[in-house]
């Protein structure tokens, strides 16, 4: 059971290393947010000053890398449905639920690798303040990567084609990102938005990253406790994965694939 899972993970890493543009974007996107938007909003944000807001944003952009990295890798499953690899996977001697587990692990791994590259860049730029907790950071990266990959697998298990990929970007990734504590403290949001953010599992990932990468400034701290963050992330990951596994074990999940293979003959 483990060799196939490992094979799927290795393929995902190989693909990431070959798609230079994807790697470059994974690094550039958070840096643009941090250096451009961070500076802009920092200037508006008077009390703690520019540097403080940028420092507040550091865990947010690390989370962003995990979110985009894991979601794009997990949504690659939909791409695989159309371009052949899924045929190899569904014919492998594994229960189909294992495909979800393998893809989830692969997506989380690929996301964590991208976050580590970003963290190295942030350290080189001097944005990693002293007081970072390495063990907590590792746990936060892993828990957030898995939760983001689980969101991605959930979407992938239920979407039929890549055509709605743009829709997924607009209606899943962006709301998940904006309705979280990535850019602003959840406590400071108006009640409606705060409720939405608190229903968003990714919010707890960012909060956990903020525990691990403390900004130091008063008024821009964390929103929840470490225990609550970890519990929410773990619970969400387990439930979303179980649902995606269930969906993948049903024939309906593979209907587009079957239909395409039956197009010429039948």
């Amino acid at each position, binding site marked *: *059971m483990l*060799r*196939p899972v*490992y*094979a*799927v993970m290795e*393929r995902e890493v*190989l*693909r990431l290393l*070959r798609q230079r543009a994807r790697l470059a974007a994974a690094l550039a996107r958070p840096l643009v947010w941090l250096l451009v938007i961070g500076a802009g909003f920092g200037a508006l944000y008077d009390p703690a000053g520019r540097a403080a807001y940028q420092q507040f944003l550091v865990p947010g952009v690390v989370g962003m890398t995990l979110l985009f990295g894991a979601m794009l890798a997990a949504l690659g499953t939909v791409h695989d449905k159309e*371009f*052949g*690899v899924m*045929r*190899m*996977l*569904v*014919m*492998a*001697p*594994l*229960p189909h639920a294992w495909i979800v587990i393998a893809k989830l692990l692969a997506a989380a791994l690929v996301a964590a690798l991208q976050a580590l590259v970003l963290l190295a860049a942030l350290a080189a730029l001097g944005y990693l303040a002293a007081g970072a907790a390495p063990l907590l950071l590792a746990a936060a990266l892993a828990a957030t990567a898995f939760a983001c990959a689980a969101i991605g697998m959930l979407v992938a298990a239920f979407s039929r084609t890549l055509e709605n990929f743009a829709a997924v970007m607009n209606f899943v990734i962006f709301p998940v990102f904006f309705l979280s504590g990535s850019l602003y403290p959840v406590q400071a949001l108006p009640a409606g938005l705060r409720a939405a953010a608190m229903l968003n599992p990714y919010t707890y990932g960012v909060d956990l990253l903020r525990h691990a990468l403390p900004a130091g400034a008063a008024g821009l701290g964390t929103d929840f406790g470490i225990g609550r963050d970890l519990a929410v992330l773990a619970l969400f990951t387990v439930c979303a994965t179980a649902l995606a596994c269930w969906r993948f074990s049903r*024939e309906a999940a*593979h209907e587009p694939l*079957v239909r*395409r*293979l*039956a*197009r*010429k*003959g*039948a």
Partner: protein
Amino acid sequence: MVAARGLTKRYGEVLAVDALDLDVPAGAFFGLLGPNGSGKTTAIHMLSTLIRPSAGEARVAGHDVRREPVAVRRAIGVVFQEPALDRSLSVEENLRLAGRLYGLPAAEIRRRTEELLALFGLGARRRQSAAALSGGLRRALDIARGVIHRPQVLFLDEPTIGLDVPNRRAIWRYIAGLRAETGVTVVLTTHYLEEADDCDRVAFIRAGRVVASGAPRALVENLAPRILEVEGADLEPLALRLAPKLGPALNDGQRLSFCFHGSAADFGALQSELAGAVEALRLRRPNLNDVFLWVNATQTPAPPARAAAR
């Protein structure tokens, strides 16, 4: 090795496969033949556990497709109409990925990869990406991918569809080599009937049902010793005129075909009788295409000869 009883797949009102019975012994080279839309692919999809039967049962390599799909998948190789390859990976990497999905150890994968690259003429392309391969080589790689774990049964769904003649010949050569080397049971579908001549046994299916089955040679011999073709301007009256002597004809718009049981002398007499009335008169050996056309013609009031001849 493959046995199906009453295997049925229903999509809403449509019966894609209607109570199919099949028996394929170990080591056989079995052809499932029929026009587009006859249910061949759906049958292969059920036997390879990609879809679940609506009714009936099937055992492949001793395992029930419904209750033990994972065990069935471990024992079979499947090559679909479209490649199951990762286009971004190289030839070698595709074979390695497939081998690991079957849980093969690294040394075994290396050994099998070398064997298959040699057998399928892909040795020089091992580092090329699958996307860069020609259609024929990609199909060859897809078949190599399907047999890396030495399956007991290999399902090939239209293995030569979309390929030109030299590539089609190459694919058949590879499959023959594979059978000689491993004794694998092969179940294939095709609508190029001339390609099914080498099968030990074929089953013609139409609208999801087996309408004729047997060894290709026996089917051909049972049809008629010769096929008589008549070309002319006005085929319908000609068919009516010749029917008492020659029996029913197939009219494909270009010519009439009769099952000819007569002697050379009968043919000579016919030639003199019809001189001037027809454009051409030809006697030839029957083939699987004729079997297929006659099977269809006798099962339906209006013979769909043109559609079936594609």
